[in-house]
C-alpha cells in the first residue's frame, strides 16, 4: 500500500517543524529517511502514523487522505514500547486481542510470530527479563502479527550494540522479503541517522534538510541486488560509491544542524 506526503507542513506555535514535505513510498517499497539529529525525522513518522495531524497539506494512505490514526500502519518505536506487565507472548497477542480475537487465537498467532523472530522459547519472559535485542524482536513480532500493509520504523535498532544491530537488520530484511501479507509485501518507511543502515536496507534513501522546517532535499534509488547481507554489502564498491554520493548531500545538512546547535 502506498504512503504519500503531499506538501505536509507542521507548526508548533510559531515554530515550523516540517516545511512542505512531499514524498511517497510505493507499495512494497523500502524507503529510508536520513537527516541530521533533531531535524524532525520522528515527527514525520508520527504524521504518517496519524498520531499528529498536519497543520496544512495531507498524508495519503493508499490514495485516501488520512484522518485520525493510521489503521493501515504498524509502528516500531525507538523506545521501550512493550507493556512491562505483559509477557513477550501477551505483548505480541495484544494487537489481535484489541481487535477482538479470542485469547486462544491471539496466543496462537503470537506464538507463530515469536517463532518467526527467533523467540519461540521465550514467550513467558517479561520485558525486563529480556535483552535489548530480544525486546526489539518482540516489538517487531507485536507489530507484524497484525499484518499492517505499511510499516513505520523509528530508529528501531539505534539502542543496540553493533553486532546485534546487524543481526537484527538482516533478520528484518529476511522477514520483510518473506512476509507476503494480505496486500503483498509491506511498504516500509524507515527512519535513521545512520547512512550505512539506510543504504544497506533500502530501495530508496531520502535526505532531509536540517531543521527547522525540515523537508526532503534529495533522494537516491539504491539498486543494490537483494537478498542482501547488511554486513557484506557494506564492503562492495557500489555501496561505497552510493554512500559518497549521499553523504555529499547529507554532510552540508549535518553541518548546518551542528552549527545551529553550537550557536544555540
Amino acid at each position, binding site marked *: 500500500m502506498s504512503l504519500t506526503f503531499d506538501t505536509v507542513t507542521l507548526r508548533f506555535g510559531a515554530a515550523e517543524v516540517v516545511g512542505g514535505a512531499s514524498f511517497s513510498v510505493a507499495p512494497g517499497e523500502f524507503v529510508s529517511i536520513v537527516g541530521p539529529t533533531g531535524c524532525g525525522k520522528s515527527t514525520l513518522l508520527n504524521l504518517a502514523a496519524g*498520531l499528529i495531524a498536519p497543520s496544512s497539506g495531507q498524508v495519503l494512505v493508499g490514495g485516501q487522505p488520512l484522518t485520525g*490514526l493510521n489503521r493501515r500502519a504498524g509502528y516500531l518505536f525507538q523506545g521501550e*514500547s512493550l507493556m512491562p506487565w505483559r*509477557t513477550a507472548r501477551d505483548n505480541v497477542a495484544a494487537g489481535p486481542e484489541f481487535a477482538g480475537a479470542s485469547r486462544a487465537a491471539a496466543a496462537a498467532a503470537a506464538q507463530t510470530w515469536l517463532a518467526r523472530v527467533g523467540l519461540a522459547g521465550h514467550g513467558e519472559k517479561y*520485558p525486563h527479563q529480556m535483552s535489548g535485542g530480544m525486546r526489539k524482536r518482540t516489538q517487531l513480532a507485536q507489530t507484524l502479527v497484525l499484518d499492517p500493509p505499511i510499516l513505520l520504523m523509528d530508529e528501531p535498532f539505534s539502542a543496540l550494540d553493533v553486532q546485534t544491530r546487524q543481526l537484527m537488520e538482516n533478520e528484518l530484511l529476511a522477514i520483510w522479503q518473506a512476509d507476503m501479507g494480505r496486500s503483498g509485501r509491506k511498504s516500509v518507511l524507515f527512519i535513521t541517522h545512520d547512512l550505512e543502515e539506510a543504504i544497506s536496507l533500502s530501495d530508496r534513501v531520502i535526505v532531509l534538510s536540517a531543521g527547522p522546517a525540515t523537508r526532503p532535499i534529495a533522494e537516491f534509488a539504491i539498486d543494490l541486488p537483494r537478498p542482501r547481507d547488511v554486513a557484506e554489502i557494506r564492503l562492495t564498491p557500489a555501496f561505497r560509491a552510493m554512500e559518497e554520493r549521499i553523504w555529499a548531500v547529507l554532510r552540508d545538512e549535518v553541518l548546518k544542524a551542528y552549527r545551529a546547535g553550537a550557536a544555540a
Partner: protein
Amino acid sequence: MIGVWRTGLAVVLLGLWYAGTETAVLSPLFFGHPLKIFAVIGEWFASGDIWRHLAITITETLLAFASGTISGVVAGLWLGLSPRTQAVLDPFIKAANAMPRVILAPIFAMWFGLGIASKVALGFTLVFFIVFFNVLQGVREVPPVVLNAARMLGASPRQLVRQVYLPAALSWVFSSLHVSVGMAFVGAVVAEYLGSYAGVGYLILQAEGMFDVDTVFAGIIVLTGCALVLDGAVSLAETRLLVWQPRADAARES
C-alpha cells in the same frame, strides 16, 4: 551471626525491663511487668477469648483495605483521565487529605454506631488517599511511547484504560500495599480505642480504664504480632503480583 546479635539484643532489652520492674527502678504501675504481661497473653490464647476480638479487628482492617483500595483505584483512574474534573476537585482533595482524619472517628461513631461500620469508615479514609494518589501518579506516568504503541496496535479508549492505564496504576498500588494495609489496621485499632464494644483496641481501652497496664501492654504486643503477620502476607502477595517488575537483583542479569 546477625541472628545471634538480634536475639542477644532482645534478651538484653527484656532483661533490663524485667530487672527494672523487679527492683522497682521502673514502676510496675506504669511499665507493667514482663512476666505478668506474658501471663495475660497466655491466658487470652488459652481461653480463646482473644480470637473473637482479633477476628473483629482483622475483619475491620480487611474491609477498610478493600473498600479504600477499590474506591481509590476508581477515583484515581477517573480523575487521572479527566484533567478538568481533577482541576476542579483538586483543592477539595488536598484539604481532605491534609485533615487529620483520625479526628473523624467520633463523627463516624455517631453516624455508624459503635460496631464494625464506624471502624471501617475510619480505615477507609486513611487507605483511600494513599491508593488514590498512587493511582493518579501511575496514570500520569504511563510512558507516552507505551500508550502510543497500544493505540497503534488498535486499542480503543476503553481498552487503553483497562489494558494500559489500569495495570500501570495497579503497579503503584501494589508497591504501596504495605502502607495501605498498615493504615487500614491503624484506622481499625484507633477507632476501636475511641469507642467500641469489641476488638483488640476495645480490650486496651477497657484495661486502661482500670489502670491495668499489664493488659494494655499485652494488647499492644498482640497487635504488633498481628501487624507483622499482615505485613508478611502482603510481602507474599507482592512477589506474586509484581512478578513483571524488575527487582534490584534481577536487573543485573540483563
